[in-house]
């Protein structure tokens, strides 16, 4: 049976995929995981997940180009300039000397 191994390097950090191992059952998987991914104190915790329990999703279509949900969906440069001109604050704005 194949187990995927996730390891946490320090408390508070995310568990990251480290690799996998083959073991006849969970008991052996635990022993092998300790040996292969933890014996040098390089991990504070491990997650062992049978490979078939992992559900992968790898397609994220964006047909409608929903960029209003993202930072790159907004370009405020021109409008901000216009607003500052109108308010008469262009000279004192951050970066105005450049």
């Amino acid at each position, binding site marked *: 049976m194949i187990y995927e191994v996730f390891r946490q390097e320090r408390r508070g950090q995310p568990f990251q995929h480290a690799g996998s*191992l083959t073991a*006849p*059952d969970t008991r052996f998987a635990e022993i092998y995981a300790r040996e292969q991914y933890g*014996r040098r104190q390089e991990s504070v915790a491990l997650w062992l997940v049978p490979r078939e329990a992992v559900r*992968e999703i790898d397609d994220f279509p964006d047909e409608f180009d929903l960029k209003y949900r993202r930072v790159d969906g907004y370009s405020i440069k021109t409008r901000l300039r216009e607003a500052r001109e109108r308010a008469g604050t262009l000279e004192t704005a951050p970066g105005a000397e450049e």
Partner: protein
Amino acid sequence: MDARTQEFLEYVQSGGQVETGDWMPDEYRSKLVKFIEMHGNSELMGVLPERDWILRAPTLQRKLALTAKIQDEVGHAQLIYRVVEDLGKPRTACLDDLVSGKAKFHNVFHYPTKTWGDVGVIAWLVDAAAIVSQKALLKCSYAPYARIMKKICWEESFHILHGRDVILAMVTGTQEQFELVQEALDRWWEPLMHFHGNPIPADEDPMFLWRIKSQGNEEARQQFLDGYVPQIRELGLEIPDPALRKDEEKGVWLYTEPDWEKLRAVVTGNGPASQERLAFRRLSREDVAWVERVVLAEAA
């Protein structure tokens, strides 16, 4: 080459990485298996020259460090064979091909370790040469292999330091100890120059073509020489190649051309210790076969 393969080739050549479940050309898969399997074999065979020295290591501290290093390397073999298994070749098939002599392992593990000086030179310089290759694998186009290389490189950095410490202890010891190091260096220089392979241009190297490796053989050797020749010379050791010098203008190391035919002979099982090592591996495999049977029976 069909269009899909061409597209795949361009993808990996532009730095793209591939996961286990992704489509890949058969040729890429078989090249990956060949390369990664040989790496796994080398880790497994690489413990044998050092194993010979566990009982003879000069202090308890050295025995413990050597044992830890050997454990690391067997661990690397485990991780690497797992990657090969996911590519379609079972571990038992890898071991069968290894003990039958069909599959290869690195040239440096076909040589005997005559003295404790050899153990130091292996731990320092052979590991240094290996790290040059392994660091270049961090960018391997096959992502699962690149990921485990991170862990492997991390452990190797301790091995180099351990090796350097062994060497420093000997070169600052008695004249006899110093000479043991010099003699070992004389023995190991040729295998070290062979280590990165013949200077085939990167573009003609299939392992580079598919971006399994990210650099050519000669590039790796130059990097090794750049890093380590000064470190060897500063200890007062002499490198047994009168032609070795750096052409400062071109920025490349010049050296006596190694005998590439000899390298080919060594890695095809005709090195001074090849057959003995394979026989030992065969023997230990038979010895522990019962463990596998018991474990699998109990788990079933």
